[in-house]
């Protein structure tokens, strides 16, 4: 379902249709389940007000984070936004530090100073997510520039939403990466909404990938609910970037199931139709891959269920860990203003 490829600037075609190894498919499945089940746990904790900080759930978009991150090494960089639980987990971030951070505990990945919108795991190339729309796009360009200057082969991936392309910073970043030929992949998760506003209330056409042509780099729109397609496109773009081919823009078309922030579903608010949500839920990326795995005989239903129960157990453990952890001491409030 590749809608368009900017003329004369294509990925190698064969890469986009290759069958993926079983182990890869199983790993993708597990990652998506981990994200799905932790988001559901987070939703419940937010509903019960145990989580008090704003949580922007990734439910429905799991294929994007899973498919892209599976192509990255620990020293590749990933930058996200307000909706980054999935990016963090898919890059290898731990469940315990994540849930502890949601609760503002000292054991949280940001020491209880960030909350859900500020996840970090320096060991895994996550140098911090920021909820200011588009603000992290130049950061990803910067780590790519650092890699280039140092002669490292790290690639940077910038995850952002369809709303972020409305910020000029997006264009400034892409243009700079293009002219400097930097190893960065721009992944736009087009879920068709920016908080309460649908895509066509904010732009004239549904054609985000076309910005790539203007900036002189490859751009493709892909089915962001098909993790295999995301994986292949990500692999091609990342390999190209790593080998000096420069940046690319992937528009992954997907959908967030819940409302913009918090656990609510956002029906009947004049924002979106129940039917629309249900249509997209039928295209659940986990169900889709699960059915493939069953059909190809790669896994049995039992094995798939086991993945889920294993992840559930880890999540339950993480939530307990978070609950029993302490808040940071009051005296540390003013610490770390300066390094």
């Amino acid at each position, binding site marked *: 379902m590749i809608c368009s490829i900017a003329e004369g600037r294509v990925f190698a075609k064969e890469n986009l249709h290759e069958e993926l190894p079983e182990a890869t498919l199983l790993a993708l499945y597990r990652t998506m389940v981990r994200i799905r089940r932790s988001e559901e746990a987070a939703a419940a904790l937010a509903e019960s007000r145990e989580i*008090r*900080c*704003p949580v922007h759930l990734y439910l429905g978009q799991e294929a994007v984070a899973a498919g892209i991150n599976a192509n990255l090494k620990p020293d590749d960089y990933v930058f996200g936004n307000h909706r980054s639980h999935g990016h963090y987990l898919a890059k290898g971030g731990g469940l315990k530090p994540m849930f502890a951070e949601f*609760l*503002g*505990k000292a054991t949280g990945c*940001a020491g*209880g*100073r*960030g*909350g859900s*919108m*500020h996840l970090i795991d320096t060991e895994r190339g996550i140098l911090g997510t*920021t*909820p*200011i*729309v*588009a603000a992290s796009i130049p950061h990803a360009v910067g780590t790519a520039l650092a890699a280039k200057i140092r002669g490292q082969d790290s690639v940077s991936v910038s995850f952002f939403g369809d*709303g*972020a392309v*409305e*910020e*000029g*910073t997006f264009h400034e970043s892409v243009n700079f990466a293009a002219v400097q030929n930097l190893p960065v992949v721009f992944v736009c998760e087009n879920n068709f909404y*920016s*908080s*309460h*506003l649908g895509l066509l*209330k*904010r*732009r004239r056409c549904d054609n985000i990938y076309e910005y790539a042509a203007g900036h002189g780099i490859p751009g493709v729109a892909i089915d962001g609910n098909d993790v295999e397609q995301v994986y292949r496109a990500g692999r091609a773009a990342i390999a190209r970037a790593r080998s000096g081919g420069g940046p690319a823009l992937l528009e992954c078309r997907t959908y967030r199931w819940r409302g*913009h*922030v918090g656990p609510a579903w956002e029906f009947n*608010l004049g924002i979106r139709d129940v039917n629309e949500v249900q249509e997209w839920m039928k295209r659940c990326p986990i169900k889709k891959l699960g059915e493939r795995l069953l059909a190809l005989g790669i896994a049995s239903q039992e094995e798939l269920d086991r993945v889920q129960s294993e992840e559930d157990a880890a999540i339950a453990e993480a939530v307990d860990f978070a609950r029993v952890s302490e*808040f*940071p001491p*009051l005296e*540390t*409030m*003013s610490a770390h*203003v300066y390094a």
Partner: protein
Amino acid sequence: MRLLTYGRALCEGLTQTMDADATVFLIGQGVNSPWYVGNTTEGVYDRFGPQRVIDTPVSENGVTGLAIGASMAGMKPVVIHPRMDFMLLAAEQLIGQAANWNYMFDGQVNVPVTIRSIVNRGGEQAAQHSQALQAMYAHIPGLKVVMPATPRDAKGLLIAAIHDPNPVVFIDDRWLYGVEGEVPERYFAEEIGRAKVLRRGTDVSVVATSYLVQESLAAAERLAEAGVSVEVVDLRTVRPLDEETVLESLARTHRLVVADTGWSMCGISAEVAALAACRGMYDLWAPVERVTLPCCPAPMCQPHETAYYPRASQVVAAVYRVLGANAVSYSRLAAGIGTSIPFSYPPVSADGSRLEAAESTR
């Protein structure tokens, strides 16, 4: 008189102005959303339609710039930035363009734009969703900056801001939206640039902005029970600053606490303290105290967040500190300029400890 909440007063002011003046339009992120702006634009879209109520893409600099452009052509746009943090992206258009335009072009084209800038903090939202950056804008000639603290002012100053021929940064704090107070039903404007003494007192002046006005009033109430008479001055406008009202209050009480919702360094509290040092020095009997945010970004976790934001109790403590201070300069005494009559406010021990202890038992 009719009671109204601050949030509804904003909405009423906006609606009446849009009724009265067809050149007014509303633009910004979330102006027609159930969340971004609380109840402050309720019903406005239904009443005025998509031509005059424009929910926008996430493009702060562009949107602010185009509102500025529209205002050059004679419109009176109200731009909403649902958080002051996001407005940083529009700093160039506001500071570089809007503030300079009328001056740079010899008064030929003015920029009657109103920027409604919402401070929206707490709720464990952390450092990037909590900033109160009034000082940045108050620094700039050509801008006006208003910070209503009461429902009446929310309405009256919004109406004034929209009609003001200059760019006005109108800062409202969501912590005030639920505050109820008397608000005239009629269409009226408050004067921009006037502070107001909200409570008369004789012992100390507390000059405050925004929600810290409400906290200061609460502090004054508590202190009155302890026999301390506090004058509360609501700045209302931070640029232009109503220096005379502040100085008059200082001349009456001789002691000054400044309470501002932003950071201290080069903040509003600095300017008011500087005013005392420059123009009120002879009236000042004790060092000025500043009640501001601590010198760090907004924390996230609940205990830190609770400690971070100043409340009435910090104002009370600051009042005790200024009351406990001596009114005479030892350096001047040593130089033989002055007598040795240490002065301290009657019910306070020299270091303020007695009353502070009493306070802590509340």
